[in-house]
């Protein structure tokens, strides 16, 4: 046990996804002040972009709503959106953190009435929908955005359109001169909950994601299935908008592959089973094939796998497809060996979903935590505290577990005592 009298009892949480939100709230509800730093304009992170969770097929926004209610009730959490950590000085108990905020061009008094969006003309790729649709240059990131505030795109801020947007706001909430800000914060502990990003499907050249439109990724599938997604939740073929009758879900697209991600991303198997459920819920005659190496449905999730196996129109094929070719119709043809039947197959599909893995979202210079593993995940040890997928490939429930534990560890740092590492080693 080390004894240290911290200069600051404030905890900083970097990242506002489910892990960051959880860490912040759990620490605040235990009586500690928390500063949240989130890169995007709103909290929620990746889970807000998901349609539903496995295994309950419930909507992530449901849990987020409760968490947002908790944040609203708490007086201890202050939030900086569109902000990132530029530098960290000092040590546990007395960090000086330099935060860089990008301009939002919209002031806190925004009521989200939408008058600005009404006059905006420029359309930009919608990051919330992975660019599968566009948004106006003045937009609400999504209907569950927290904080419930609009954003004006820097692309139009200095243009006549920007002026029109400004003029449209009756309460003067638009500030076109917003230059963003860089400032220092004194905190006693930092929880890194910077989350993940999808492994780039373009790297998987044999799977032709780049040039066959009906080959999509699992995160794109989430948007396709989402009621607030580009198709209002209708799962269709990107090429022609047709309803897919035959769908392939390909596991380990990048994961468990020494040419790409050496580790297993853990969530993909279950996420794909969930996608099978999406398709079967929507398309009565749809047939879904799940291609896998090992089905990793650990603990209670095994029962979710059995739910899918009970459906005669969902087929599990133990095979890592070797390649995807473009068929006569231009659609994808999945080629490989069924390792249980020894059959070499070439199956045409209407839609192929690549279960691309998760990789740590922060790279290179952005890595400011105390310790990282070879994959770039934050390793929790001593003063280095990771939460959620920033600390390794975890599902949502495990991310919340790790975030709650991270809050516990952070509290110890700011209260001046560290007993033992969260992960159970010295």
């Amino acid at each position: 046990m080390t004894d240290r009298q911290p200069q600051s009892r404030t905890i900083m949480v970097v990242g506002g996804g489910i892990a960051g939100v959880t860490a912040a709230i759990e620490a605040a509800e235990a009586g500690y002040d928390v500063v949240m730093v989130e890169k995007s304009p709103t909290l929620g992170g990746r889970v807000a972009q998901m349609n539903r969770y496995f295994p309950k097929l419930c909507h992530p926004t449901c849990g987020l709503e409760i968490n947002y209610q908790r944040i609203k009730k708490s007086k201890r959490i202050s939030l900086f959106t569109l902000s990132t950590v530029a530098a960290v000085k000092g040590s546990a108990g007395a960090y000086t953190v330099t935060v860089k905020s990008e301009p939002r061009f919209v002031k806190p008094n925004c009521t989200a009435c939408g008058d600005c969006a009404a006059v905006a003309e420029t359309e930009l790729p919608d990051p919330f929908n992975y660019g599968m649709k566009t948004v106006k240059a003045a937009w609400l990131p999504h209907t569950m955005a927290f904080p419930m505030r609009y954003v004006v795109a820097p692309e139009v801020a200095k243009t006549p359109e920007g002026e029109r947007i400004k003029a449209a706001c009756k309460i003067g909430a638009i500030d076109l001169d917003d230059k963003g800000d860089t400032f220092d914060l004194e905190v006693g502990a930092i929880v890194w909950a910077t989350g993940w990003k999808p492994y780039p499907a373009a790297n998987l050249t044999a799977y032709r994601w780049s040039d066959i439109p009906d080959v999509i990724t699992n995160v794109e599938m989430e948007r396709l299935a989402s009621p607030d997604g580009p198709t209002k939740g209708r799962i269709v073929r990107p090429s022609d908008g047709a309803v897919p009758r035959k769908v392939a879900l390909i596991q380990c697209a990048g994961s468990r592959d020494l040419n790409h991600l050496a580790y297993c991303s853990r969530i993909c198997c279950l996420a794909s089973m969930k996608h099978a459920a999406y398709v079967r819920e929507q398309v009565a005659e749809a047939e879904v094939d799940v291609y896998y190496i090992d089905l990793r449905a650990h603990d209670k999730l095994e029962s979710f796998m059995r739910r899918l196996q009970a459906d005669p129109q969902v087929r599990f094929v133990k095979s890592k497809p070797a390649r995807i070719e473009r068929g006569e119709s231009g659609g994808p043809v999945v080629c490989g060996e069924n390792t249980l039947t020894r059959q070499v197959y070439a199956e045409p599909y209407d839609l192929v979903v690549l279960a691309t893995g998760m990789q740590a979202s922060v790279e290179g210079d952005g890595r400011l935590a105390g310790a990282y593993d070879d994959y770039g995940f934050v390793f929790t040890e001593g003063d280095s505290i990771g939460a959620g997928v920033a600390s390794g490939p975890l599902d949502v429930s495990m991310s919340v577990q790790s975030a709650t534990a991270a809050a516990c560890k952070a509290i110890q740092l700011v209260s001046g005592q560290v007993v033992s590492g969260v992960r159970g080693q010295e």
Partner: protein
Amino acid sequence: MTERKTGIYLCSGCGIGESVDVALLEGVAKKEFKLDSRTHACLCGDEGVAMIRADIEAGVNQVAIAACSARVMTDRFGFEPIQVLRADLREKVTWSHAPNHEDTQALAEDAVRMVLTQAGKVKAPEPYVEGEWSSRILVMGGGVTGLEAALQSAALGHEVLLLEKSDRLGGRALDASKRLPYRPPYAQPEVNDIAGLVARVGAESKISARLGCTVTQTSGMPGRFMVNLSDGSVETVGAIVVATGWRPYDASKLGHLGYGASPDVVTGVELEAMLKAGKVARKSNGAPVKSVAFVQCAGSRDPDHLPYCSSVCCASSLKQALELIEAEPDTNAYVVYQEMRTPGVMEELYRTAQSAGVIFMKGKVKTVGADLTVTVADELIGEDVPLAGLDMVVLATGMVPNSTNPDQPAPETGAEQLAGDVDPEAPFPVAGYCGDAPPAHAKREQAVPEGGSLLNLQYRQGPHLPVLHDGFADSHYICFPYETRRTGIYTAGPVRRPMDWAEAAEDASGAVLKAVQAVRSASAGAALHPRVGDLSYPKINLNQCTKCKRCTVECPFGAIDEDEQTYPIVNSTRCRRCGTCMGACPVRTISFDNYSVDMLSSMIKSVKIPDEFSGKPRILIMACENDAIPALDMAGIKRNQWSAHVRVVPVRCLGSVSLLCISDALSVGYDGVMMMGCKPGDDYQCHFVKGSAMAAERLSKVGETLKSMMLEPERVTQAEASIADADRLPKVIDAFVEQITAIGFNPFKGF
């Protein structure tokens, strides 16, 4: 208490003023409630807020705001300790209905009526804080999870009472060899330093450990649990962390895998002990083990045994194989598996084992001969291949959660608490059910742990922590994994779900933080998840109580017990404030300071019901404020439109809706009532676990009542709503309005 002085504030911004006549709304406040309202074009702006503050200075002690949804501008409109009530004129009125239309105007006026009626019926809640509160944390179990939990609790400044059933701290780790990898590069087994962990606990003054000690009974509530111990003492603790760990699945049930046929067929736990002792030899003749086969999923992932995956067996077998090879490099090690489950970075251990020469075979074991010949139906070769010349066969038996104490007999009551109340394999909906629909599903046989209760809770609803299924005491929230259905009691480690040392240690920290929050909230009289900070709690007017016991039975969290005369007693800090008890009570005896059947009924009745000649129906929607209300807000944000004939009353949970509210609504002339809330059943999404299920249960019985009132049962319905239904709900509402219009007007109208 001082006389109530309510201030009513209207906002005409965000299009409200352009859509409805705010002056008429002011008129409603003035004429019907004798209140002078103040209107501002941007009430949430500094000016508007200053205006309200000034009034509070001048003596206003209750604020009613008719502006945007209660879900936004909470910081701007927060005037603690003054009670603030919100009426939504924006999302659910102006943005979702035709501007400058008489129906929209009527909708807005009713919103003002409802909030002002509500204001008259509620007061700022006074928390229950009487008596002494303990901040001590009881940790049950002295294994890795319990030790970590004790250390973490101490690190957060709390006294800890650590109980261990056996006569030594350390748990299963004491009989284990190396640990699974937990730090970069995650490729090798790690040193098992359980002794160090035990020593750190011993050195921590805040922790008092009792060996050979178990709990004989637990009563009380968070902040004030009375725990009787087997050593005869009685202790008071504020919160409880259950870290009782796991036990191996009974291998004697695995005869089909050769267990018992030969002494050289052992379990993973048995091999682990041999490795720990540094002497791995054939039990039969003490000969060295040169060739060994590991059989995975021995009892796990098996409908006849443990239906779930025990998660760590794959990695454990790899670790054991590596230890054998390390000790004797030319050991032949085989692993017979069905799915190799080394998730996340544990994949490194898989590669390490492969590199070390461990042979992996996917398939099922067909037979294990007395000569240890294991015949494998090898799925990858497509042949039955015998494994001969083995010295040992290791069965990777699964983990059974210690949700019960196997050394104790099962109590007479509470068996149903262990059976689990959802079916995790219930089929999910398939479009149309045409084509080949999934076969009819028989409810799955669940693994129910045997033995006595851990805590022997003296709760009306029984002695156990209710399990969701397969013995895991979980409310199965994905977002809130620590929430059990017994407030202030948290499970951690393998008793919660199968997990390894590193995960369990992490899990302990998380559970401890929840326990710390529990004791803090208890002493403040504040609610825990999900209504964190809510100071209200159910108060029962025993004079009217009929002792029907519905409240004690229906409370999802077992918060209400019964006294000698079987009158209900509320244990306030066990309560999550969902109001299910209030909804259950047939005689309105249960209410909260700021929430009651009377409040809801009065709000419902405050609405102006047009007569049948107007041709306008009135339909009541009781909507869950956790999911349905946000969904309707988002529908408004998207400018989705729906019928202006409905009146929406937000409720804490459908469980809190009393049938009396419904009969009141129908008696004053509403033409239909819709309960709009979360999904009940196997994939329930109710934040209070059982609320929406209870509502459905009650509603199923309302048909008869309606018939007796000469009303069509179709007038009352329950609609499943999820938070993502912003586009769907308006259609659901309009369809119901159409259906009701088709049925015709409520004959009670005007009476």
